[in-house]
């Protein structure tokens, strides 16, 4: 969940914030050295490598590589399989983001409203935050298991013969449920703290002006929550795109052929199973561009339209 961090949700301000600073030629570089060394070796080097190898075709037996220009990109973007996976990723991301935000918001509003048991609800609702995505996937496999899964039995009761792991749509459904389940606590925590940050005076004024609870929420509370909501929108999108890898890996169990997978999973499959270095790198670069666009979109548009209180 910390992949693209919340700090990234705000454009950085001026670096030199302090009026008084130390003057030293050497010391700042000394303090920065460990961080910069790690960033160079494990961030910039592989990133440049990815861009570089996306223009080359690697020999499968490891004997050198040939420059192929944009061929890897056109191959990827022309492939029907890739486009299908891209479409699934878009749908998956939209649904996971929407439902985890909606349920998180609903629970936060309710938890903010009740007085009795407030702390207990809060404690119980945030547990799942601490669970790793693949462990969540394992829990999902158990709940949707053909033999013992209670959710399969519930579905059967409604005449739905659910076959998670075999049927494409059923697997997609289960993946979405598990991914939403895992992400609700995060949204809940942020919405609740956002709600608790709204001054009592504002709430009381709204209460006097407007008797309908729903309209009050819609016209007063929700706009005040907008900064939180937009920040969460980006975080949830990156979560659905990248951090659900563990959920998907556990739920498709290496049988990706007839199961839904996301773009990140495809990068992994092609790179580590298919040994297609060029294709996988081209896909990596495409993902990098998506993340970049997302971030720029966030800085340029969203930040401007949101009312800060």
């Amino acid at each position, binding site marked *: 969940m910390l992949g693209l961090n919340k*700090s990234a949700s705000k454009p950085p301000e001026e670096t030199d914030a302090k009026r008084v600073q130390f003057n030293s030629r050497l010391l700042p570089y000394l303090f920065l050295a460990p*961080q910069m060394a790690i960033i160079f070796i494990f961030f910039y080097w592989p990133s440049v490598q990815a861009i570089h190898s996306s223009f080359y075709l690697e020999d499968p037996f490891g004997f050198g590589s040939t420059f192929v220009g944009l061929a890897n990109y056109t191959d990827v973007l022309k492939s029907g399989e890739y486009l299908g996976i891209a479409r699934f990723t878009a749908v998956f991301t939209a649904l996971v983001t929407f439902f985890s935000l909606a349920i998180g918001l609903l629970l936060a509003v309710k938890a903010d409203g009740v007085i009795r048991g407030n702390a207990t609800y809060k404690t119980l609702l*945030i*547990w799942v935050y601490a669970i790793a995505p693949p*462990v969540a996937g394992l829990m999902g496999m*158990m709940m949707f298991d053909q033999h013992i899964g209670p959710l399969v039995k519930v579905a059967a009761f409604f005449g739905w013969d659910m076959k998670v792991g075999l049927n494409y749509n059923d697997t997609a459904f289960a993946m979405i449920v598990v991914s939403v389940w895992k992400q609700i606590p995060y949204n809940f925590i942020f919405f609740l703290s956002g709600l608790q940050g709204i001054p009592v005076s504002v709430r009381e004024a709204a209460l006097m002006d407007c008797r309908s609870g729903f309209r009050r929420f819609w016209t007063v509370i929700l706009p005040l929550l907008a900064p939180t909501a937009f920040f969460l929108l980006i975080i949830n999108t990156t979560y659905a795109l*990248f951090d659900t890898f563990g959920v998907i890996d*556990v739920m498709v169990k290496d049988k990706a052929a007839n199961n839904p997978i996301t773009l990140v999973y495809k990068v992994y499959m092609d790179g580590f199973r298919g040994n297609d270095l060029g294709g996988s790198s081209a896909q990596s670069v495409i993902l990098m561009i998506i993340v970049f666009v997302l971030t720029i979109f966030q800085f340029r548009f969203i930040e401007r339209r949101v009312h800060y209180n």
Partner: protein
Amino acid sequence: MHRTKLFDHVILMMGVFFMVGPLLVALMTSSHEAAEIHRNGLSILPGGHFVDTYTKVLTKEGGFTGKITGVRMMMNSLILGIGFAAGKIILSMLAAYALVYFRFRFATITFWMIFTTLLLPLEVRILPSYEVMNTLKLTNTYSGLIVPLLASATGTFYFRQFFKSIPDELLEAARIDGAGPFKFFIDVIVPLSKTMIAAIFIIMFVYGWNQYLWPTLMTTDESFFTLVRGIKQILLVWVGSNIPDYNEAFALAILAMVPPVMIVMIFQRWFIKGLTESDK
């Protein structure tokens, strides 16, 4: 008014049921025998095999080479969680200190180079990162497991924000008293950052403990497996056998979630503060 409150509680209870139910079922089911689970399905009541299942999972040697036990995986998870959290805090405090308290030539460019790392998660550059690790011969080592995860500068930003909120007067006073940069860091900054350090440690420990993709790529030697990394192996056993060892699979899943869940529960207040306020 009264009726709406009741309705609120109903929704919250449904939420709790949805969130906590599966965890409870996993815990309870893990205390039954495999054959029993296969016959009767999942259970919400405790069975009589809690101790022997967990003893077996923790001490029995399993995996393909038979070298790995639950205890070993747990230790590896702890090493990853603690190593990652500690490394992150040390690196980012030093870097943030340099950025906030020093005037130097390449400050702006350094800042942007660090900022860029927040834009691209590890997942989009897994293959080249793996190649780099191969070149450096760091696969199947603890440093290979931990250090590359430190490359994202989230912590640096948390601490940078926090240092900026520390009043300038403190530095002025310290300078009048003749304190140099090292002394100021150790005697003023570190003590002031205690709560912040604790909050970030919790968040980062949970993050490190829960890593999956990177450990999957980095460790092929089973003696380096973490609990979360081992999940895949659990499932392979589950799929392969006639009566799957559901109980053992659940027990391992429970073991993989207990430490991070406990930490979040116990330090809930710090954890929420760290998560939501580091943004400001």
